[in-house]
């Protein structure tokens, strides 16, 4: 790993000091969501706007902090947009995405929290989802995903752990939406 003393210094600063900003990796389609969608009668749908709640401070949509590392969204500097892309990726991988559908799912990011304590790490992600069909509201619900995990004194372990758990909140929230009984009823063919 250490190709030169300079690389060692750079790596040391990232691992030990843990400074700087890190974009969240792009979401990979979840097999759980795909199987869940395939086993349902959900019709293909379009993904509309995903925005932050007006009550949420703008910085909360742009970044979360794990110790001294700032985690940012790779999608238009917005975690709300990132959440929309997670839903889109899962729908597409299951063959349930149709940009021309008259059924549109949209979301408003309401909770975006991450805490990387020495003893315990916690994260929460919440959104208000709506589904419209030919412009008529057919589904309207708040959903939240929460996680708690063992913390670690060593930043080189704690920070990647926090990033992994934080990213998995998006998958968990998307799966909650796509497997929600009311959502499935509303989105049925």
């Amino acid at each position, binding site marked *: *790993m*250490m*190709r030169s003393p300079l690389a*060692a210094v750079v*790596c*040391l600063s*990232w*691992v*030990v000091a843990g400074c700087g900003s890190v974009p*969240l*990796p*792009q*979401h*990979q*389609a979840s*097999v759980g969501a*795909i*199987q869940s969608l*395939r086993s349902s009668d959900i019709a293909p749908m379009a993904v509309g706007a995903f925005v932050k709640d007006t009550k949420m401070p703008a910085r909360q949509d742009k970044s979360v902090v794990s110790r001294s590392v700032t985690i940012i969204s790779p999608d238009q500097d917005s975690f709300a947009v990132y959440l929309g892309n997670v839903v889109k990726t899962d729908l597409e*991988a*299951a*063959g349930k995405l149709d940009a021309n559908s008259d059924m549109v799912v949209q979301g408003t990011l309401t909770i975006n929290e991450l805490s990387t304590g020495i003893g315990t790490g916690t994260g929460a992600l919440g959104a208000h989802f709506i589904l419209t069909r030919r412009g008529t509201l057919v589904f309207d619900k708040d959903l939240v995903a929460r996680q708690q*995990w063992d913390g*670690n*004194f*060593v*930043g*080189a*372990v704690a*920070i*990647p*752990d926090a*990033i*992994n*758990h934080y*990213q*998995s909140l998006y*998958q968990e929230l998307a799966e909650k939406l796509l497997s929600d009984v009311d959502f499935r009823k509303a989105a049925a063919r």
Partner: protein
Amino acid sequence: MRRFKQGALAPAIACVFAVIMLSGCAISPYVDNGLGELRPEDKVTVANPKPVQLLFEFQTKGVGNGRATDFLKTEVLTAVQGSGLFLEPGPAPVSDGALLHIVINNVVLTDDAFSKGFTTGLTLGLAGTTVADGYICTVDYLAGGTKKIEQVTRDVIYGNIGAKEAPPHAEKVASLEIAIKTVTRRMVSHALNDLARNPEFPK
């Protein structure tokens, strides 16, 4: 190519690395030679490879690790293509719903990696340390989107720090990047080959 960051995976190695870095000790990665490369003469061939949707996820202690997934997905795709068992594997769904789901889970095999690294750091490497990270590769194949065949393979990466002899039954590699790519290629190739031996695998 995206540079692989120490700590993005290999938690035991990262833990030791973090607490001894200031001592200037070097880390030497080794790959367990129990699994080894899949030999060409052992490869299973299929007459009519079928299209498949490929999903890959790297996990650290059971939790998705997006950075490592990004880092290794080309390696996994290359191994799947190289197996010759599937036609045009890719992320898009295929007409008959066939799905190949590959998960590599990185688990810590060495207890108390922190104190080991601390001791090595304090003695400027004289008290050497060897830590081990385990990797469990699970390959699920859903033929026609429903019938599931599963195959599991395992491998180990060792991190040797300070004045410590090489771990037995392991080969030294030049970097941690090469180590993780090596175990990924080996685990996926062997798992797919074993999968193809299953009588239920479509040939």
